[in-house]
């Protein structure tokens, strides 16, 4: 078991390494003088020259990358071209807000999604099943930012039940979470349902039913664990979708998180910040998928032996 764990963690390291290479290269794809790009549009020629020597931008690319990686490992993500504050500081100030939103949505999406999928599969072809799947189809097709705006219109402007945006109280968290989670709830529900239905066709389920076990026991104790594996994969992948969606949701609800910072940085051509946030998101996503892979070993004992 632990050899699988070690191997899987070992595989993650080259991926993380590769991620830094990709981001390093993408940012340097920007046409024009990288020194000016990093210094910012308002910088003077003097400053651009200083940055060029300071960051060693006249060095060959692999040397630049080595420096970049070294600084990265020390936790130095560069300096914002706009505010001149360390990028890590800018990100740190907003990490909590995004984390709250993403985690909340993840929990909601997984719990409601799986629940809906289980119910749907247990009552296949019933009215409930069709309703749930119909709603799921809606959820998969709705743009998150539009859903957010419509929720805002209904619950803030018309009903005055919830605040329209901003950050602070739990009430502020509700609408953004619902908007962000919608897509993932739908995907997870659909997949849980189809996965369970596939498992229902297997012999051991038929045996369990023939034994006279209650439907609930059959589904929850016997079928579910086996159906969970593809669902787990998707849950991990959906976290990535949630991070992406967070960018849109934060913009809609004026949520002070990393997503909004990213959008503003792109608009302001603040490439060090863009680079830093892209790195952080990619690392988080890789770690989450690693965690999912590790959970496979718990859910499916067969994996140990592979």
């Amino acid at each position, binding site marked *: 078991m632990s050899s699988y764990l070690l191997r899987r963690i070992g595989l993650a390291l080259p991926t993380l390494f590769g*991620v830094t290479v*990709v981001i390093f290269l993408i940012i340097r794809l920007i046409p024009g003088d990288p020194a000016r790009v990093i210094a910012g549009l308002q910088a003077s020629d003097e400053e651009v020259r200083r940055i060029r020597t300071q960051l060693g931008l006249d060095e060959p690319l692999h040397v630049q990358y080595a420096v970049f990686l070294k600084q990265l490992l020390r936790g130095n993500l560069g300096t914002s071209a706009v505010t001149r504050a360390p990028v890590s500081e800018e990100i740190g100030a907003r990490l909590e807000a995004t984390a709250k939103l993403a985690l909340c949505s993840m929990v909601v999406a997984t719990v409601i999604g799986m629940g809906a999928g289980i119910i749907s599969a247990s009552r296949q072809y019933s009215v409930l099943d069709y309703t749930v799947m119909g709603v799921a189809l809606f959820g*998969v097709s709705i743009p998150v*930012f*539009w859903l957010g705006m419509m929720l805002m219109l209904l619950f803030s402007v018309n009903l005055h039940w919830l605040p329209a945006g901003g950050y602070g109280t739990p009430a502020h968290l509700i609408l953004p979470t619902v908007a962000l989670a919608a897509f993932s709830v739908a995907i997870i529900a659909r997949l849980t349902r189809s996965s369970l239905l596939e498992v229902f066709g297997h012999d051991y389920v038929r045996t369990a039913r023939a034994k006279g076990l209650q439907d609930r026991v059959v589904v929850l104790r016997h079928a579910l664990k086996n159906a969970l594996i593809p669902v787990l994969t998707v849950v991990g992948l959906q976290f990535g979708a949630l*991070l992406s969606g967070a960018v849109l949701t934060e913009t809609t609800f004026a949520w002070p998180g990393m997503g909004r910072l990213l959008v503003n940085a792109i608009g302001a051509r603040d490439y060090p910040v863009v680079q830093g946030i892209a790195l952080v998101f990619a690392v988080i996503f890789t770690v989450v998928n690693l965690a999912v892979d590790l959970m496979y070993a718990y859910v499916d004992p067969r994996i140990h032996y592979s």
Partner: protein
Amino acid sequence: MFRRLSRHRTALAGLVMLGTFIITTSLAPILLHSDPNDVNFDQVLQRPSRAHLLGTDQLGRDLLARVVYGTRVSFLIGVLAVAVSGLVGVPVGLASGFYGGAVDIAVQRLVDLLLAFPGFLLALTLIAVLGVGVTNVVVAVGVATVPIYVRLVRGVALSIRTQTYVEAAQALGAPEPRILLRHVLPNCVAPVIVQSTLQLGAAILAAAGLGFLGLGVKPPTPEWGTMLGEGQTYLFSSWYIATFPGIAIFLAVMAFNLLGDGLRDALDPRMRLP
């Protein structure tokens, strides 16, 4: 039996919806009398009325016209992005799955790397680097989608490669490109069609997302996401600016999802829902 029919019915529903979109936008110059880019400062922010069925936006432009013409932009971006990712992803996946070996490993590592980034964020980062505009949106969304096709086709190629008839063809001395073309590729057609249909919806969503953030097509081109982004400022007073483009996105994406789901069930009932 009934279930099989209803699946086909879903695909049909999707097709009908898409047909409506396409026909409406094609006949737009005849059906509509307003130009989507016609600025009218004396008719700014008008509520839906007989003159302007969906209202006007902050520059006095007819929203109905913008939504209908926006169909062209959004669908075009979707088709081009999917075409780009397909044209790149399918050959790479074929080669990777069929030939195996070092090529396969290299391609797999690259795909894993690209997939280490959430798709929309990758597209966003690419836009940050490339700048805005239709071409860049197509490239950004297309590149972010390539790994999906590579993996899909690679999977098919891998499973076909071990089939007996391929061995037979090889034993008969058929050159490999011919085997690829005549035996492997036809098996890829169905999954690629299904995936492409679903990806069309996803691409439209992604492009709309970029547009919403102000990072999509350049104004004044009517694009649904961009309209939504502009409409956000006026959400509380002129709700219609943001509402109707959103409905359009929703219906278009749902149409592609319906069609894709239906196609998947019709072409290969063994394939699973995402």
